């Protein structure tokens, strides 16, 4: 049962503060010019107007560094203990692109083998999505099947209206939370929320200042299905520096490394950390063989993953159009341009 409500900015702060009483609140805060999703005790510190967080909120479910277990040896025997994972959490302020990225990550960590760490955090977290108040020049969610006011993936979704917000309970869990704290909300209706989202989306997209050109993702996918070796990837790879910026900031990238650290022979831990398919040693095998030996293979792997592999495996496009890599890539490797280029190459065939 969905509910449709209104909430003022002040009440929203109070609502969030109320939620911190029995939950961890993870929300966007601005620290030294960058916005990050961090644990927040004082809801007054939450940033409601940010364009894009530096690191995507995937880091809540899949932290950059996470202990798998710690161990010690006692009486000649290993004692392994997995860390306890966070309980009830509210993840607030997730923009539609990042909401969609969580839906793209779910089937990776769920599936035949549940990833206990991700899945536990995911199960214990209520996500409050926040519609965008502007579309940045690097944003392109609306070109990859999303939109600045799309609520998919949220439990509760907030649509900004001037200074205040319209609130939808998208899932039962979200609706329950709104109902439980109904004193912060006033009434609205499905029609009003719908209208505001439709008109808001039109308004936001008209203001979009980003790269022009229409995407035809099925065409790109079909082209990549049929063409693995194309000169384009090598040309593109020339300028790639092989750093991890794009993958670390990508809300759908999920590669990780596992390493053991022992403080002495008697105790230590096994850790997983984000890793990047752009690093040259990523696929290097113990015997020295590397299946992806040059930047060409590595750059191709990244974009094949976004535009084809992720869809092949999980039926979801691997890029949500958040624009983080567009903004931060030091050598202007821009997925929007790559899509347009591939469309052109495909068209010439």
């Amino acid at each position, binding site marked *: 049962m969905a509910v449709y409500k209104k909430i003022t900015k002040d009440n929203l702060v109070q609502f969030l503060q109320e939620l911190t009483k029995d939950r961890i609140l993870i929300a966007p805060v601005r620290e030294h010019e960058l916005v990050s999703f961090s644990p927040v005790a004082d809801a007054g510190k939450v940033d409601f107007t940010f364009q894009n967080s530096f690191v995507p909120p995937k880091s809540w479910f899949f932290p950059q560094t996470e202990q*798998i*277990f710690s*161990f010690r040896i006692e009486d000649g*025997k*290993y*004692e*392994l*203990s*997995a860390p306890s994972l966070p309980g009830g959490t509210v993840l607030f302020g997730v923009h539609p692109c990042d909401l969609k990225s969580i839906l793209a990550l779910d089937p*990776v*960590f769920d*599936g*035949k*083998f*549940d*990833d*206990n*760490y991700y899945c536990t955090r995911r199960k214990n977290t209520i996500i409050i999505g926040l519609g965008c108040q502007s579309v940045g020049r690097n944003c392109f969610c609306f070109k990859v099947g999303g939109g600045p006011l799309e609520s998919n993936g949220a439990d509760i979704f907030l649509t900004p209206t001037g200074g205040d917000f319209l609130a939808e309970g998208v899932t039962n869990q979200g609706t329950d939370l709104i109902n439980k704290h109904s004193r912060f909300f006033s009434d609205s209706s499905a029609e009003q929320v719908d209208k505001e989202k439709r008109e808001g989306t039109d308004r936001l997209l008209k203001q979009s200042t980003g790269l022009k050109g229409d995407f035809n993702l099925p065409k790109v996918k079909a082209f990549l299905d049929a063409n*693995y070796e194309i000169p384009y990837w090598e040309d593109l790879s020339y300028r790639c520096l092989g750093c991890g910026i794009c993958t670390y900031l990508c809300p759908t*990238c*999920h*590669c*990780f*490394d*596992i*390493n*053991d*650290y*022992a403080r002495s*022979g008697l*105790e*230590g831990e*096994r850790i*997983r950390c984000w*890793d990047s*398919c752009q690093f040259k040693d*990523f*696929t*290097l*095998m*113990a*015997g020295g*063989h590397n*299946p*992806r030996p040059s930047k060409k*293979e590595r750059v191709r*792997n990244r974009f*094949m*993953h976004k535009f*084809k*592999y992720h869809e*092949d*495996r999980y039926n979801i496009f691997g890029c949500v159009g958040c624009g983080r890599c567009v903004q931060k890539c030091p050598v202007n490797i821009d997925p929007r341009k790559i899509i347009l280029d591939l469309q052109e190459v495909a068209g010439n065939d």
Partner: protein
Amino acid sequence: MTDFQNPILPRMAYITNIIDETSDTKTFKVEFEGGGKGDFLHEPGQCAMLSIPGVGEAMISITSSPTFKDFLEFTIKRVGRLTTVIHQLEVGDQIGIRGPYGNNFPYKLLEGKDILFIAGGFALAPLRSLINYVLDDEHRKDYGKVDIIYGARSVDDLCFKRELFENWPKKKDTQIFTTIDRPEEGWDGHVAFVPTYLEELQPSPENKYALTCGPPIMIKFVLQNLQKLGYQDDHVITTLEMRMKCGIGKCGRCNIGSKYVCLDGPVFFLDQLKQLPQEY
């Protein structure tokens, strides 16, 4: 303590026997506390993550057949830091294990067929699980003739010598063709590289599946020669190896195109392999 719902948390098992196969390869018999393999039930061709906490973890094929009811076996070559430490372990020491992972050899599909196994060096280990399954008294009747072509660099590099020279040749309708790369004093068997030996033996593809494991260069020429002998791509089976960390399709490093070797492999038919990008 140990959470069995957590697939990347290993269980600690015990090493109950160690066999020196070659100068750098050992087979470790592994059992869980109190003996046996508990609920760790695998199919021939599957793998497991073995680890030593504080040192590391690696994907290793399970070389024992599921028909070995009371233990698991892993044949491990000393190549890096983890395997060096594992080689220093003794009977009674603990080792971490999680799995079983990956797909398996299509042993049901092979029923009623002749089987040709072709292996080089240490890579007999993954095939051995299926060989012992097929040659097991309970299953032998389900399969046709079994031929095993196996080669190594030298006599010392031949693994599973006891089975190779004593157990397997005694099985019904089973022939073993062993070869080494260069002549050696005291060796009166065949001398040739595996692909060449295959060419000499000319095993007919009639009603037969070929399964091959070995170093990449051997595989390359074995596959060429099988093709020359008339084996169809959907009757040739091999295994792939990629670097792995999680083993459960999440860490993202063992993909070949859209396939993850840890989930969708390691066993591939040649026709499937030909559909994959050449990135392995």
